[in-house]
């Protein structure tokens, strides 16, 4: 029994065709919009997504949401319904509960490049599916928040609490502390309070100096849609919970699981027993797929993150791979949907389904809307720029790589031993080599090395990711097609044995 939703559109891996015109990866606003756009223009389209139902993270479980959720989660969330429903009626195929794990070039018999080959996996079956164009819409993930004790059970991300609220209607029991910075922090606190949770404190880690730096963007911000929403939220917070500002240090204490939250504000240490600590300091693009596919990335100093380099149609430096939405740079859900449409238009033109002029004509109003919805973004980026104290851990014993349990002090020591970049760091310490493949340590490791060397993160670079970007079972890999040439490459000619190869 499954709860996947998609009606006629939904397919299992076994049912998929061998080839498509466009494969879109990720069913958030960007992916849904791109798939709808390109399918409507006549492309044979497949949308792959890891979750059971469409919506990505921001519109998680939107098609399961009821009226009570609208009240709990707000109007912005509710908007996602239309995007998801439109997609399901677009004629595109949809493969929910399916993981995409690689993208490689597809060549014809003569070795000529004809498109891409996407590795997919679902229900224990792996396949390689060909496509002419790929749109990555893999979105964002929470910026790592390395504080002492962040690995204790009972510490989660703010996004995690939102997900269980949206998908399963779960509300935290006991005393909840929400900590960090960014608009989502207060939004979540409001949603949880609305749902009946006890939010014992909101610990705001935004440094005072951010206000001064953000001020020059304020005039533009005041004309944006964010203002009214923001002010309402803040007023709610101040009435219904304890808001602590200018928190400069924080840790979670156990033993065994999180029992107390400890923080420093105004030069004083405070403690609060708690049952759940929710951390959030913004989101960063999820670069694992675009990185492993060989796309060029740049360091965005405003957003303090690496993002893929894209042109005006969201095509990356790898021809035929586009990336739209938060995965290309954090701009929010409304922008993601518009970018998805623009990426779809770009794809359609490259496939010669529409001409260049037609593409430009359709795009012009979308571009105008995009400018409008991102108005005020500079102010938010500046205001909510996470403080260095929480990006580069102050306490040297803080675990930085959760999978391999590597501390900040070990990373710093390896820099002086010669690990000048994250890929050398992998060799020295195994950081980034665990199952999460750097998703929870990459930004921290880069910034720690940068801090230790006294250079910019741009100069330090990021982990070089490899496929599969999500795990698949060895048996699945073994089930993929094998060629004679491959057998020769592995075994040599049997008469000329493996030994002479090992020489």
């Amino acid at each position: 029994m499954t709860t996947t939703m998609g009606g006629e559109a939904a397919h299992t891996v076994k049912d998929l065709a061998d080839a498509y015109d466009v494969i879109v990866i990720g069913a958030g606003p960007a992916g849904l919009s791109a798939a709808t756009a390109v399918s409507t223009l006549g492309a044979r389209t497949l949308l792959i997504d890891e979750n059971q139902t469409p919506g990505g993270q921001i519109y998680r479980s939107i098609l399961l949401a009821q009226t009570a959720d609208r009240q709990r989660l707000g109007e912005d969330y509710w908007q996602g319904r239309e995007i998801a429903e439109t997609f399901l009626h677009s004629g595109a195929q949809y493969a929910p509960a399916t993981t995409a794990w690689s993208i490689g070039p597809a060549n014809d018999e003569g070795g000529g490049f004809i498109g891409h080959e996407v590795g997919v996996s679902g229900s224990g079956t792996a396949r390689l599916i060909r496509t002419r164009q790929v749109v990555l819409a893999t979105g964002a993930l929470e910026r790592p928040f390395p504080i002492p004790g962040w690995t204790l059970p009972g510490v989660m991300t703010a996004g995690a609490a939102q997900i269980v609220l949206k998908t399963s209607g779960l509300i935290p029991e006991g005393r909840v502390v929400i900590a960090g910075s960014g608009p989502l922090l207060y939004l979540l606190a409001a949603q949880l309070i609305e749902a009946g949770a006890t939010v014992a404190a909101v610990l705001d880690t935004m440094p005072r100096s951010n206000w001064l730096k953000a001020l020059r963007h304020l005039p533009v911000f005041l004309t944006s849609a964010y203002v009214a929403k923001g002010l309402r939220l803040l007023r709610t917070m101040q009435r219904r919970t304890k808001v602590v500002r200018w928190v400069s240090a924080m840790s979670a204490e156990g033993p065994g699981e999180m029992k107390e939250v400890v923080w420093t504000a105004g030069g004083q240490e405070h403690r609060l027993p708690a049952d759940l600590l929710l951390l959030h300091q913004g989101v960063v693009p999820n670069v694992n797929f675009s990185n492993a596919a060989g796309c060029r990335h740049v360091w965005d100093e405003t957003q303090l993150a690496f993002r893929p380099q894209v042109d005006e149609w969201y095509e990356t430096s790898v021809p035929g791979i586009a990336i739209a939405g938060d995965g290309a740079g954090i701009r929010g859900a409304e922008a993601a949907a518009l970018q998805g449409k623009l990426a779809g238009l770009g794809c359609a033109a490259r496939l010669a389904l529409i001409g260049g002029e037609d593409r430009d004509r359709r795009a012009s109003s979308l571009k105008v809307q995009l400018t409008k919805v991102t108005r005020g973004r500079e102010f938010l980026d500046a205001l909510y720029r996470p403080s260095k104290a929480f990006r580069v851990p102050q306490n040297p014993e803080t675990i930085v790589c959760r999978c391999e349990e590597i501390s900040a002090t070990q990373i710093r020591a390896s820099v002086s031993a010669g690990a000048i970049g994250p890929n050398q760091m992998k060799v020295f310490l195994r950081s980034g080599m665990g199952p999460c493949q750097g998703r929870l340590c990459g930004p921290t490791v880069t910034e720690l090395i940068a801090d230790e060397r006294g250079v910019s993160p741009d100069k330090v670079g990021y982990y070089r990711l490899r496929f599969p970007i999500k795990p698949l079972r060895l048996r699945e890999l073994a089930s993929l097609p094998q060629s004679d040439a491959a057998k020769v490459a592995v075994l040599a000619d049997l008469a000329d044995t493996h030994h002479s190869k090992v020489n």
Partner: protein
Amino acid sequence: MFRRAPDRIRDQVTFTFDGMPISASAGDSVAAALLAAGIRACRTTPVSGAPRGPYCMMGVCFECLVRIDGVGNRQGCLVPVQEGMTVETQKGSHFLSAEPAQ
């Protein structure tokens, strides 16, 4: 640790966690169902044996690893609960037995 909003109770699904019966709603992920049942730690790490539990709930952190129906290291937040599922704490690294689960 989490309770369910009364309007969101769906068809009941029962599974076991380390032999203990757990009630969940259809549509829950295994990780969400464990959280709803008050279970905060679902594994111990291969490196040090430290207890860990779900952190991101969106499939990127790999903290919610559990053993499901005899297959280890499955991301609980990506697997929907099913009636009669056997879920167990993922103790350390992926256990290789001489008889692999089919």
